């Protein structure tokens, strides 16, 4: 048996990252360049003298041959230089650290909510298959999936923001908090903890509840479905039958043997759903005026700022690839069969 070692597996997997990143980057480049219309005059509006447009075109290298542009584009990304926006001259690196941090804060708490809700309901529905509990769990999952995040967010704003007046309906923190809180990590909740500024933390958390719950509940639907099917599948496995045959109580079989194994694939699902969560974050951030990277993308799309859009899409692509690699690593670590 010459099973491949973990290290060899990891190295092969890492090598596969290169073509994947290259393909994504090339697709983004082609899309943005093949795009009809002139990006620069589009971004600056119609009232710019041709000479200025020409100068900016030259500055951005848009007048060079396509292949040269492609080379520069790849080389810039390799050096970590994602460019500067056309409309408001912000370096992309600043968008990544500031807006990215806001998105990270939102998606982290949303994922937490999604995992707790999804795992609990999914396990119960799978365990009590075909009972009213299962029907309820599945229906909850389907409706959670069927509800657009922006609709759920709107209803949350109406009920908890406008009618009950419990929670703020937009922004990441109140203006006072944003002005007074010192910046360490750009993640406001973390900054508040570092400073031991508990009133600021309370304010940040209050602003976080609605967006995170909205995005989390919408994502939970997917978890419920997958975990339920996994539990059903695991409960039919031979080793479960064997455990039952050994006289282990059904309770112990379910809780100690089945659930643990049914949850292993969740790692994959969590990882793959990070990509989905990023898509959902765009909508959640727009609904709640959350200053994340998705919100930035929508704003720059409206302003037709091609370099900003291209830069943000490239960042998303890199995040997605990184997530898929991390998922595969974790899977290989947990499940030796994956290493072939």
């Amino acid at each position, binding site marked *: 048996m010459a099973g491949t070692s973990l290290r060899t597996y990891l190295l092969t997997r890492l090598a596969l990252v290169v073509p994947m990143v290259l393909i994504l980057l090339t697709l983004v480049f082609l899309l943005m360049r093949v*795009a009809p219309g002139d990006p620069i005059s589009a971004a600056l509006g119609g009232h710019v003298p041709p000479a200025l447009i020409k100068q900016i075109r030259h500055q951005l290298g848009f007048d060079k041959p396509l292949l040269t542009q492609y080379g520069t584009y790849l080389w810039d990304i390799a050096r970590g230089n994602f460019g500067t926006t056309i409309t408001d001259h912000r370096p992309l690196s600043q968008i990544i650290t500031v807006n990215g941090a806001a998105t990270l804060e939102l998606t982290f708490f949303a994922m937490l909510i999604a995992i707790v809700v999804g795992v609990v309901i999914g396990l119960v529905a799978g365990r009590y298959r075909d009972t009213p509990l299962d029907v309820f769990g599945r229906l909850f999952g389907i*409706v959670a999936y069927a509800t657009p995040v*922006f609709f759920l967010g709107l209803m949350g*704003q109406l009920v908890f923001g406008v009618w009950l007046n419990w929670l703020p309906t937009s922004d990441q923190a109140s203006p006072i908090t944003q002005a007074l809180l010192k910046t360490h990590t750009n993640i406001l909740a973390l900054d508040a903890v570092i400073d031991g500024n508990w009133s600021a933390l309370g304010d940040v958390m209050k602003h976080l509840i609605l967006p995170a719950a909205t995005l989390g509940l919408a994502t939970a639907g997917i978890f419920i479905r997958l975990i339920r099917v996994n539990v059903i599948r695991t409960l039919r496995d031979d080793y479960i039958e064997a455990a039952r045959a050994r006289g282990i109580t059904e309770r112990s079989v379910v809780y100690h043997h089945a659930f643990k194994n049914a949850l292993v694939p969740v790692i994959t699902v969590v990882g793959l759903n990070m990509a989905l969560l990023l898509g959902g974050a765009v909508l959640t951030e*727009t609904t709640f005026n959350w200053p994340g990277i998705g919100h930035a993308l929508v704003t720059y799309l*409206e302003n037709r700022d091609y370099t900003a859009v291209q830069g943000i*899409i490239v960042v998303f692509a890199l995040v997605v690839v990184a997530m898929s690699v991390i998922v595969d690593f974790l899977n290989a670590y947990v499940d030796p069969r994956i290493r072939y």
Partner: protein
Amino acid sequence: MAATTPRAALQPIVRAAKPIREAHGIARGMLWSGTAITLFFVVLALFAPWISPYKFNQYRSGNVRFPQLAHPSHKHLFGTTVQSSDVMARVIYGAQTELKVVVIALAMALVVGVPLGLVSGYFGGILDRGLVLIMDALFAFPYLLIAIVIAFLLSSSSIGSGVLTAAIAITVAYVPLYFRVVRNHVISVREEPYVDAARALGARPRTVIRKYVFFNVVQNVPPIATLNAADAILLLAALGFLGYGIQPNQGAEWGYDINRAVSDASSGIWWTGLFPGIAIVLLVTGLTLLGEGLNETINPVLRRRRFGRIDFEPLADESEQP
């Protein structure tokens, strides 16, 4: 010969319908309720001009302008919007828009994705490797973002925004899914004895794919396409919400209406957002119930028959593993 051909063509349909007749319990309930909800919206869409009290962009009746942001009343059951149009009319006409876009988008995604998957899976080789790399890269990417970018690029081109742009954006987002499903299935079917036999008899690849592989693979498509339609509704609504879907003068679209409702919400106005939202939730739920019901009755791993209990070996979902 001529008599057997139509029957042979019908056979996969009959075979596919068999588990549906045998469905019972929850799966049966899901199938029927899903079908009922979906049909309800199809009827709304097809007969919108007769069902709806007003047109989707109508803001006056005779010479009387509708009130702005009026509460639901007997005259306007779902209330009116800030532009004085009737919310109920917009919800009903919205069904038409959703149906149009989703049908076009799914048809295009199938027409592109299925043949690519068939050819790529059957012939293998460099073409297959390349396609798999590209499709996997696209598949990993959040499809909402793909759709947004495509819609953004198309809307600044001569095509402009509208039904076709939205449909193309959704198509591009879903082609990788169909490609993957079909290709992976073709690869397992390719080695089946009956396909080998056909090849040994000297059938050309074209014939083998068309007559043997296609019908076997295509049975997987209905549940996926139904679930996908549910997803496509959400995607279209998301595009509309972000302003890249159907423009207000071209038709009513639920996502766009919810976008407009966000500013109403701060003054406690609920009817402009609630009704289009409920329409989305209902239609997506209906399609999901239908798709999952189909999946459960057709997929042998999850299927339970009416008579006796047959336990199948749990098949690992190979298509899900990287």
